[in-house]
């Protein structure tokens, strides 16, 4: 494999260099009907699950067919998506914030035909390639992080847990029968690149063992003061150890102070936390982002730990399904999952979802913890 140069000359890195040009302007990519009616939309309707119709003040209509995706996609797969867009949608497409794919057509029948076509595409292994859905009062695609596919700090996998979950809640992706939208999000460590802290249901990878200390290498690989400063609970302090008659500058960790955040590992590769037995998943629920009716809200931890059970994480998906089904059966129309839990009371939530309430669910992290304890006699038996 011979090296192919693009024109870049390593001896003169500045020659012909273009930098700081930013993204392409979105205006270049809008389908004609979207460009024409930009900022002049009148209303929208969801004609069928996964099929939207936007009507402009001009009377123009844009039909959108939305389908799910695995987010992690290959060049071959993206080209296939492009083929579909070329054939059906004038060479345009968009991705939603939640990694769905949208094709815009200008005619209702074309939209329904496209929906049927997309629903028919399958991988040889049996799964669908482009399942249509993700609209209205249902579950839409899961936003997620990298997991074991590509990150150095995960406590669980992302693509695998998401695939397992979407398979289990698939019916709610394709039908709109929930009381309100349910946003599920996934982050494989507390860093939360996926920011799952405001989701109706959140899958969160967590560690439970304090960092291992690689004394012999630590001082070579890390700045000790940075590692010390990185710990939010002050569990890390400088130290010295004797190993095989040699003294190493290193750190010591007050283990009972560790909350397993992994921040020290981010600063110092000689402090890994990952552990097959220690790692697993916490489930959080009841967050939201929209300002609709009630205020945006944080997700709350309702299951502190579920072990990693690849490839399909059955305990985790069972818990998620139970929460979703209980909510679907019990909540009022328009009521988000967290609003339902607030209305019936969290003690009822645990009862109805058959979840155990344990000491791990009582917040003990700094000031905000205090605001989560009860200061009233208004509780339920």
């Amino acid at each position, binding site marked *: 494999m011979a090296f192919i140069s693009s024109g870049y000359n390593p001896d003169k890195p500045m020659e012909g260099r273009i930098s700081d040009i930013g993204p392409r302007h979105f205006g270049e990519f809008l389908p004609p009907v979207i460009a024409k009616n930009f900022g002049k939309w009148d209303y929208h309707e969801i004609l069928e699950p996964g099929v939207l119709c936007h009507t402009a003040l001009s009377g123009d209509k844009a039909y*959108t067919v939305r389908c799910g995706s695995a987010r992690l996609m290959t060049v071959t797969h993206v080209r296939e998506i492009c083929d579909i867009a070329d054939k059906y949608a004038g060479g345009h*497409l968009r*991705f939603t914030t939640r990694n769905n794919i949208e094709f815009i057509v200008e005619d209702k029948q074309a939209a329904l035909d496209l929906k049927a076509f997309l629903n028919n595409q399958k991988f*040889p292994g049996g*799964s669908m390639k482009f399942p249509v859905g993700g609209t209205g009062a249902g579950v839409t695609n899961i936003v997620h992080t990298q997991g074991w596919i*590509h990150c150095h700090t995960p406590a669980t996998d992302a693509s695998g847990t998401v695939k397992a979950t979407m*398979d289990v809640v698939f019916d709610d992706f394709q039908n709109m029968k929930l009381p309100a939208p349910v946003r599920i999000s996934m982050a494989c460590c507390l860093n*939360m690149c996926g920011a799952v802290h405001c989701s109706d249901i959140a899958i969160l990878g967590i560690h439970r063992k304090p960092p291992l200390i690689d004394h012999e290498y630590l001082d070579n690989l890390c700045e000790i003061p940075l590692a010390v400063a990185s710990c939010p609970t002050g569990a890390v302090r400088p130290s010295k150890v004797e190993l095989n008659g040699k003294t190493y500058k290193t750190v010591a960790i007050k283990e009972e102070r560790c909350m397993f955040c992994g921040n020290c590992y981010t600063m110092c590769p000689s402090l890994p936390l990952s552990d097959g037995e220690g790692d697993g998943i916490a489930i959080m629920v009841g967050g939201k982002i*929209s300002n609709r009716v009630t205020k945006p809200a944080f997700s709350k931890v309702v299951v502190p730990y579920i072990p990693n059970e690849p490839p399909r994480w059955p305990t985790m998906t069972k818990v998620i399904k139970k929460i979703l089904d209980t909510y679907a059966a019990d909540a009022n129309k328009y009521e988000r999952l967290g609003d339902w839990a607030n209305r019936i009371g969290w003690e009822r939530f645990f009862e109805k979802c058959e979840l155990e309430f344990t000491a791990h669910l009582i917040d003990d992290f700094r000031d905000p913890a205090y605001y989560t304890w009860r200061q009233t006699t208004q509780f339920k038996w």
Partner: protein
Amino acid sequence: MAKHKTPLLDQLESGPWPSFVSDIKQEAAARAKNEKGVQYQVAVDCPDDLLGVLEMSFTDGETHWKHGGIVGVFGYGGGVIGRYCDQPQMFPGVAHFHTVRVAQPNGKWYSTEFLRSLMDIWDLRGSGLTNLHGATGDIVLLGTSTPQLEEIFWELTHNLNVDLGGSGSNLRTPASCMGMSRCQYACYDAQELCYNLTQEYQDELHRPAFPYKFKFKFDGCPNGCVAAIARSDLGFLGTFKDPIKINQEAVAAYVGGEIAPNAGAHAGRDWGKFDIQKEVVDLCPSKCISYEGGKLIMDHKECVRCMHCINTMPQALRIGDDRGVSIFCGAKAPILDGPQMGSLLVPFVEVNKDDDYQAIKDIVEAVWDWWMEEGKNRERIGETMKRLGFAALAEAAGVPIDARQVQEPRHNPYIFWKAEDVEGGWERDLAEFRKRHQR
């Protein structure tokens, strides 16, 4: 023939949801065949080896990626994330597997021409694997080797007219909702503002100068489709000041059942006939709507613009005309100090393209100056704000103080009065004091 046995991953090929395993296998097969005769610049079998590493993680429940080293393109402090496998002998194809972030067009609209050219680059110079899209919004190209980085950057900038996104302690790639391109709720052109600020702050995006990462997100309205209020250090949410516009005939059509409520979002289940009292009037959080004698009446001064009534009857109700943006500061996920929601810093500011959004840029820059001065290393602005107080931030940003910035006034009277707040200041004469009070 697959290079590695993947019995656990194979189980993720069944079930309805698109299987990333099947997709990676198809890429592995395509690269092995190489029908187009691509002169692959990184290991041909990297998709195979990626499946191999992942299977190993599925078996022992631990990641096999090492801490990223420092790699990137000349002159940039971000945009590339270094990644190395911790079992390089077993999986040489992914021994070096760096991620490249590419700035996405706002609203994530694409032409197939652009996407195809991008895929051609990634076929030739990368693993053939991507994330569409990363959590901050960028196009994520997964897996290449160090010698390819400058080449990729060259081709992106010269042939595709597109730049790298952000990573590290700098401005991360800003993201917006689809806004006016296809949403009637957009109170301002979220995509254009996002684009403009992204261009204005290219230096901040590519050259880390901040204490820690900084995110901008732009939601066209309070529905919050890109989660600006929860996921950005400065979040921009469209809003309006004047009355919601009511079309009483369309209201009657909703009541009469001719139009499905909530744009048909609840069609999957029989919720009974639309009940405007129960579904709109009673759910209004500020109780400012009534429905009397077939008319919807709104006390618009009391409306908190939660969007519920508009979402429920999109053909009858429309956002007001006096539109602008609210700016929220300090949202972040839990690391380090617990999760934070954005706090309302500026209740309303005009979004004025004609003066290049100067009013907004003034606020952004003042906030940055303060944070760069006061913030500690790896401290998100939300934490700085908690440590030094909201009023200090507001003062630094030059924003007037307003009851809208709080949910309720303070609980404790330990007020940090300043000398200038008090008549006569703090300088006092002890001799004078002692004339009135014996020792």
